[in-house]
């Protein structure tokens, strides 16, 4: 069934980045590489202290030292069109990680005028 089934473990990241507090620009620049080096993005997993940007093949990039409690996680998530709620993203949660989709695109002729 096309439903919440077991998820197999992910292998090693295709690339990693170590986030330095205050250096969000560098983290965003790293993430921009996903456009070229990963396939169609599928989802983001965000731990307290790291995050994975995962593509359709389940290949992924890892950003270390940046997790959902950090304010700087927001521009990184936005960079890849993550569907998350900025009001609750930093809230603690009784989960290993939070997971979000990243499938949003610009619709066709978004800026068309009648």
């Amino acid at each position, binding site marked *: 069934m096309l439903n919440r089934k077991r998820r197999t473990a992910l292998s090693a990241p295709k690339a990693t980045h170590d986030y330095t507090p205050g250096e969000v620009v560098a983290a965003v620049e790293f993430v921009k590489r996903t456009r070229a080096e990963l396939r169609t993005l599928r989802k983001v997993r965000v731990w307290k202290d790291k995050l994975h940007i995962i593509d359709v093949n389940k290949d992924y990039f890892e950003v270390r030292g940046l997790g959902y409690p950090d304010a700087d996680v927001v521009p990184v998530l*936005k960079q890849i069109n993550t569907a998350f709620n900025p009001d609750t993203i930093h809230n603690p949660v009784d989960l290993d990680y939070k997971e979000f989709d990243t499938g949003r695109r610009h619709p066709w002729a978004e800026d068309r005028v009648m």
Partner: protein
Amino acid sequence: MIQTNGTSTKAPSMNEATPKDPFNNNCYGTIVDSGYKLISLPVLDVTDFNERIIRGYEEGWGERDLPADLSVARSLIPAGTASLRDFSNIAPEIPEYIPENCTGCMDCVTECPDTAILGKVLSESEWSKKMQTIPEGDREMFSKQWSKTKKYYDAGKKKLGDGGMFNIIIDPSKCKGCAECVTVCDDDALKMIPKTDQVMIDSRKSHRYFKNIGPSDNKYINDNLLIDMMLKEETHIYTGGAGSCAGCGEGTALRMMCAATGSKYGDQWGLVAATGCNTVYTSTYPYNPYLVPWTNSLFENAPADAIGVRMRWDQMGWHDKPIWCIGGDGAMFDIGFQALSRLFASGMNVKVFVLDTQVYSNTGGQASTSTYTGQNTKMSVHGKAVGGKQERRKEIAQIAIMHPRTYVAQTTCAHVNHFYKSVLGALEFDGPALVVCYTTCQPEHGVADNMAGEQARLAVDSRAFPILIYDPRKGDKVKERLSLVGNPAVKDDWFVNPKTKEPVTFIDFARSEGRFAKHFDKDGNPSETLERAKQDRLENWHLLQELAGLR
């Protein structure tokens, strides 16, 4: 030598291997080969059409050089001609199958919009013999694509004494590279790879061998496990080769509807289609993916047209042949709504299938009455003064329930069992039936090509599109007839996403699609219109809960 279908002549048939199609991937039949679907009509010569007109289009000279003769002028298209269409070169990547991870769940086969990923199961003993028929040089390449799953191999060995070998194959002539199959695979048994020459040769050969070795062994197919129905040839009524966009949610919906109907009626049924995307991509001359009779009259009158066909079929004694009337939300919620309502009131045995993309997809994205509040469309453009559509969505399922004795279902392709039950229930019902299927329109919704299933699931989880089945035979109260089973947290307002522990509201759904992107400010706060849309969806859910006796 690659074995092909049909007899060899000087000019090979379109249904045989050719220099352009050396492994005969563009051919009739889905799991096994088949000849043309011939028909005895003075106005349509199937062989001439396929050999001359299809050839003209496939070879690129059709539009220029085909004479304007009667065949062309009539615009009739034989059944299944889309089988002969070649899409090998439209995508840069193709899925690769990783048999050791496969569980045989059939999700990939079921969700493909293009009949481009196929499954087969054979007993190990038969399989061993068949592998001997594969040319030696390709034998290892092909045989290692077979999987020993718990579902078919271990269970088969235990129950039948012989394990079922399971295979997933890509038809490279039909795959558009959307990656829907990879996305729905939770077992890492598929991934996208570049179409190198070697990949394409192996893929084409594998698809050819797959077809050559005969059908699945039915003893491994459990008829109660609806998702396994696509292991049977008779369910493949909708062939690959239709002109829909990569990943089109509608393609999957039509394939699954055809599969369920085919599983019960083979090709002894028919289709009346309302103008819309569906009629364009299934009848772009000269390509037709349907193996059953199909007609299209206008945008507004498909249900009336279907009533006429039904009457004639009944006159001919064909009472048991189902008729499906299909159309988009534009045709069924709006332009043909009156004809639809008339059909329900008639009590006639016609089944209606709505491809609900919440927008006029075909004509460039105008708002329909199915469009959600806040959605950015033509006719409800998001600007400074007005943020997208301001009206509320019309709920055709509830409206249909209020018609005399009409079977009604709302479902999505992501809810496979619910979908099949909805369609089979509609077919079993002795009167009019409506199945409304949520379908993603990638360009109009603003989501990636691989997201049809995921977004359909989110639409249900977020109460944007609750699923339901209303069966008038199930009691004398609405609350006995209406089932909301399949919706998460059916007694609550909102479902809580276990991956975030947060309620999944319409606003969360909206965040995931480009059609609502303008409703979020730079800090991600939703607009007042979107808050209204959320309230609207909650009220709609409350209404359904009340009707179902849950509130």
